[in-house]
């Protein structure tokens, strides 16, 4: 049975930031330990990269809605985030958040996130926005880092039928720079 932990002793035992106490029966002591990802879950965040776009941004680029992953020529590129993974075995969670709008009614807006020059790794759609309205889009792609080479995540958006899609507003910008479009890349250690 584990003994009671003495936090003062533990804090003086050489524990570094992020470590947790683990009971060692053989020595009957609490030992600073770095979580190793037991159960298959990521053990910790290695780094977070955020790219933001605060200006009202528009495009009339076509974005076809189909049953296949969007190709990297769909829509227009609005924002990129570059990350250099700390490990080749990390997991990267790539999330796009945006306030989107349309300047004409009943038009669908397609969104996708791409890695470097590849096909889409994540996608979403705002189906037939009405009355030149706005909507929230948020979607995540989860990929392996694969290497420690720098990699670029690209967010593209566009319209299914001729119109003009808008980030951070509709006809007018909303809430100044408080309403922003973001790509957030979180690298988890394995």
């Amino acid at each position, binding site marked *: 049975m584990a003994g009671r932990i003495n936090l003062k002793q533990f804090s003086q035992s050489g524990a570094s930031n992020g470590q947790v106490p683990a009971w060692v029966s053989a020595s009957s002591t609490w030992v600073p330990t770095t979580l190793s990802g037991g159960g298959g879950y990521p053990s910790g965040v290695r780094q977070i990269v955020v790219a933001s*776009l605060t*200006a*009202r*941004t*528009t*495009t*009339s*680029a*076509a974005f076809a809605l189909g049953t296949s992953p969007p190709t990297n*020529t769909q*829509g*227009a*590129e*609005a924002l990129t985030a570059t990350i250099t993974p700390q490990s080749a075995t990390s997991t990267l969670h790539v999330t796009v958040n945006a306030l989107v709008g349309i*300047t*004409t009614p009943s038009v669908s807006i397609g969104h996708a996130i791409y890695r470097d020059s590849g096909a889409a790794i994540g996608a979403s759609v705002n189906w037939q926005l*009405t*009355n030149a*309205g706005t909507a929230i889009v948020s979607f995540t792609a989860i990929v392996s880092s694969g290497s420690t080479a720098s990699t670029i995540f690209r967010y593209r958006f*566009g319209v299914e039928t001729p*119109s*003009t899609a*808008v980030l951070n507003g509709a*006809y007018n*910008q909303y809430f100044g720079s408080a309403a922003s479009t973001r790509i957030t890349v979180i690298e988890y250690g394995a």
Partner: protein
Amino acid sequence: MIYLPRPENSDAESLHAQIDALGIGPCCIEWLDDELGFRFDYDLGGLDFEALQNAVLAHDGSAAIAARVAQEEAIAAIRAAAEPLAANARAKRLAGEALTSEELAALVDVALFGT
């Protein structure tokens, strides 16, 4: 990213249409206070850049802006006229009563233009 001075009366839809007509898209435009930022998938060559610059210089979105204002005013008027009838229609249906053609038309307006 290419930054050019923002024309005084600039309109997103009509400017995108001008750029699309040049065949140099797709692009995104960032609407800054005094400038427009253009992001293309490739570096524009000299002729394409010149065409973009000329299109922005020649851009006058005042007609599109006026048309949008007129449309928004028309929608506001339709909403204002429809909402009392739509509210009455909801109450009547809850009471099991039939609706008049005017109330049905108001419900269609609410569906088309919101409340």
